């Protein structure tokens, strides 16, 4: 490892830092002004890359030269900026006052829509962009060859930082953006045209995302999946830098770029882990990142379960539902039972999340981590310890509970959006471990041969087994929600100041809630592993976390039974619609957006509201 090698690594780190900063800068600006964490920011980045990779070659055919190339890059970024305006006007404008959870889910709906539209418009193949004219030859640095385009990228970061700084310091728009970042209500009270300010900010944010994406085309081909990988990194940069802080994002991007460049040398396979560990450490020491400020208290209210009169028929209703479900094998064939088993598993998964979100007001965006830990724990126990199902399931549950205890210990100090980001990061760490530690976890292929014990084999037996476990755990969790512990969680959600003033130890209650919820999700994951006979890293991915959140949303997060209904409805819809169209994500994304905008109370909540209105 000589000096020139280190220098090249440092330069590599700087160039990826530049790209990351340009994208994350847009995310942090949008958050600062609108207080919305825009999941779709990664999608805008992807659109930027696809647009540039398609547009620039056409332009170069007309007139070949550096000017055309850079004009094409700029035009692509402007197109993405205009798409940003579209998103603001059509969607974001309607959810500025909504709870954080709804904002996150709605913008994730946009992610799903864009994923399908991108394939529809640009085709399923990766698109390789042209190399930049005039920058094709590598340069010689300390005797090693280094791509000259990377040097341009290294310069691009500070140039964008300088331009954004000028914009924020020297223009009226910039003054308004800074003012809104500090105190949004004050800006509204001063009679500033907020609609224009927000739309303008979205244009700027989307433009930067598009620019970040467009600048990538000479290095990597535009491909589906760019969106989620960049958004995870951009989240880390904005959170580590302090949400809303542009200089913070720059500093964080440089730290992360270098960490990735040199982390490869120390842990060749675990760059993702290193990055997310950095985030965990920074947030543990500085809960608001390098330059972030505490969130203003009294912003969006956590919504969740409220006290209700218990229906005198509740016990009868539970018995009836369980009875009908237990009778299903009498009429259903093997396929129906397989689907029903999966519904039960996801109902349990979603219900475990309800303890955190609906009861505790803790928006966990990485619940897939615990589901996946349960599944992997069970699968690893089968593969490496040759344990039978009866022992493997508890092993998975235990692993998930331990994971939740660890994650919970970090995040209970945080609140709101920082908690959501931190849980997301935790899930990504677990994902990275499962994905990259091939020797143990099988990497991308996962682990196969995870079959239930003989007595639980076969669709009917396994369905009944899953039904028994799900029913038992759901009833147990319902009791916990109704017990003093559940009330204490709600108390902390409703008013932290009051809860502390009556002597409640909020952090400890939340920590225990994480462990209970993680254990239940882990059990669901274990049952899932044995139902499919295999596990793979997608169980731990962001889409799995969002699945659980969507089930809560569909059913209604202010109701106890909502997640169960939501799991059933979502799963049946998916089962019916997916074979009919290749655009399932488009349908799902639009549905999520529609629910947030039109039926934020979900199915059970809306039904109940109708019922109460009639009464």
């Amino acid at each position: 490892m000589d000096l020139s090698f280190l220098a090249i690594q440092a330069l590599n780190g700087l160039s990826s830092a530049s790209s990351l900063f340009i994208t994350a800068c847009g995310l942090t600006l949008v958050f600062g002004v609108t207080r919305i964490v825009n999941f779709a920011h990664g999608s805008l980045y992807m659109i930027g890359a696809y647009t540039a990779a398609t547009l620039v070659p056409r332009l170069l055919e007309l007139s070949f030269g550096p000017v055309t190339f850079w004009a094409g890059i700029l035009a692509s970024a402007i197109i993405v900026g205009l798409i940003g305006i579209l998103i603001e006007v059509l969607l974001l404008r309607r959810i500025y006052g909504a709870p954080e959870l709804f904002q996150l889910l709605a913008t994730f709906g946009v992610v799903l829509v864009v994923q399908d539209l991108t394939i529809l418009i640009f085709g399923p193949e990766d698109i390789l962009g042209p190399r930049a004219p005039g920058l094709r030859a590598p340069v010689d640095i300390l005797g090693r060859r280094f791509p000259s385009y990377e040097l341009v990228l290294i310069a691009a970061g500070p140039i964008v930082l300088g331009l954004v700084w000028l914009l924020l310091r020297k223009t009226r728009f910039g003054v308004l953006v800074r003012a809104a970042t500090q105190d949004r209500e004050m800006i509204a009270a001063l009679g500033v045209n907020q609609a224009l300010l927000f739309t303008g900010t979205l244009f700027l944010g989307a433009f930067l995302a598009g620019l970040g994406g467009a600048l990538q085309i000479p290095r990597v081909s535009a491909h589906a999946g760019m969106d989620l990988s960049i958004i995870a990194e951009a989240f880390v940069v904005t959170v580590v830098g302090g949400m809303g802080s542009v200089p913070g994002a720059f500093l964080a991007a440089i730290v992360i770029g270098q960490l990735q460049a040199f982390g490869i040398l120390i842990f060749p396979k675990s760059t993702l882990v290193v990055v997310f560990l950095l985030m965990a450490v920074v947030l543990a020491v500085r809960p608001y990142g390098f330059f972030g400020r505490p969130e203003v208290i009294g912003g969006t209210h956590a919504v969740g379960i409220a006290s209700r009169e218990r229906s005198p028929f509740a016990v009868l209703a539970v018995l009836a539902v369980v009875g009908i479900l237990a009778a299903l094998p009498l009429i259903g064939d093997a396929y129906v039972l397989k689907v029903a088993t999966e519904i039960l598993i996801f109902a349990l998964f979603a219900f475990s999340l309800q303890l955190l979100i609906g009861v505790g007001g803790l928006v966990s965006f990485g619940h897939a981590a615990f589901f996946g830990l349960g599944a992997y724990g069970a699968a690893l126990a089968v593969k490496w310890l040759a344990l039978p199902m009866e022992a493997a399931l508890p092993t998975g549950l235990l692993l998930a509970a331990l994971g939740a205890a660890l994650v919970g210990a970090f995040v209970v100090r945080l609140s709101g959006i920082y908690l959501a980001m931190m849980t997301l990061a935790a899930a990504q760490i677990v994902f990275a471990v499962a994905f990259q530690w091939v020797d143990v976890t099988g990497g991308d292929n996962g682990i196969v041969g995870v079959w239930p014990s003989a007595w639980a084999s076969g669709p009917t037996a396994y369905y009944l087994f899953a039904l028994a476990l799900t029913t038992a755990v759901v009833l147990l969790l319902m009791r916990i929600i109704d017990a003093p512990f559940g009330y204490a969680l709600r108390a902390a959600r409703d008013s932290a100041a009051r809860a502390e003033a009556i002597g409640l130890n909020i952090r400890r209650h939340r920590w225990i809630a994480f462990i209970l919820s993680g254990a239940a999700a882990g059990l669901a994951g274990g049952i899932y592993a044995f139902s499919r006979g295999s596990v793979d890293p997608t169980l731990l991915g962001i889409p799995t976390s969002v699945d659980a959140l969507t089930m809560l949303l569909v059913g209604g997060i202010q109701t106890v039974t909502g997640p169960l209904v939501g799991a059933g409805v979502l799963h049946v819809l998916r089962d019916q619609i997916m074979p009919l169209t290749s655009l399932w994500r488009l349908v799902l994304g639009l549905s999520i957006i529609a629910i947030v905008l039109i039926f934020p109370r979900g199915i059970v909540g809306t039904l109940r509201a109708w019922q109460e209105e009639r009464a």
Partner: protein
Amino acid sequence: MTLLSVQHLSKSFGGVAAARDVSFTLQRGEMLAIIGPNGAGKSTVFNMVGGQLRPDGGAVLLDGRSITTASPQKRFRLGVGRTFQVAQTFLSMSVAENVQMALVSCRRESGALWSSARHRYRDEAIGLLEQVGMADAADAPCSALAYGDVKRVELAVALAGQPKLLLMDEPTAGMAARERADLMDLTASIADAKGIGILFTEHDMDVVFGHAERVIVLVRGRIIAMGSPDDIRQDPEVRRAYLGDEHALEKPKGLNPA
């Protein structure tokens, strides 16, 4: 007997000294008001007594025991109850459940996972609500109450911990004039009956001079006067501090439509 003893408290934010060498004592059953112009440091002193802020220097003693660095939770267990400037209640729960929650916490049962919380200590909670005149609304959702009633519920919640010391940060802010007098009369009678010491901040001078037994005047973080309401009203330094607002220190004229 001295209940609360505040000794040489100081606190600065950046370069601004919000509290400088603040010392006072409070007896059992006494009502002590802290007043002062905006930015005088009332809330800073208040939050250092309540545990929301940690002082740079000085000490807070409750019954002779130092609670200077204790958390709000710990202070609650030692007998410090409080109400907030903007009333803080659990809006997703019924009125009775708000008080029940405090009783559950008081008895360290908030970690119980199995038994139902619905009826736990309900009778006791109703008893406390009767004391503040809210028993009829016991089953109403807290989110459906008028603001004056929310303040009463908050008082019942604070009393659930059987406090020796009750901290009330602007107890009548946001209330109508008649409600203000009623709430403070109620508070005074409860404090008197149970021997609870009450420390409160207040902007409404009618409330201060009508209910406080002693008054502390803070200006720019420093105590400039301390004494009975009549002494304070005549104090030339206090008059200077309230210059331009001399009516503020006039005697209350019965029901003032403020």
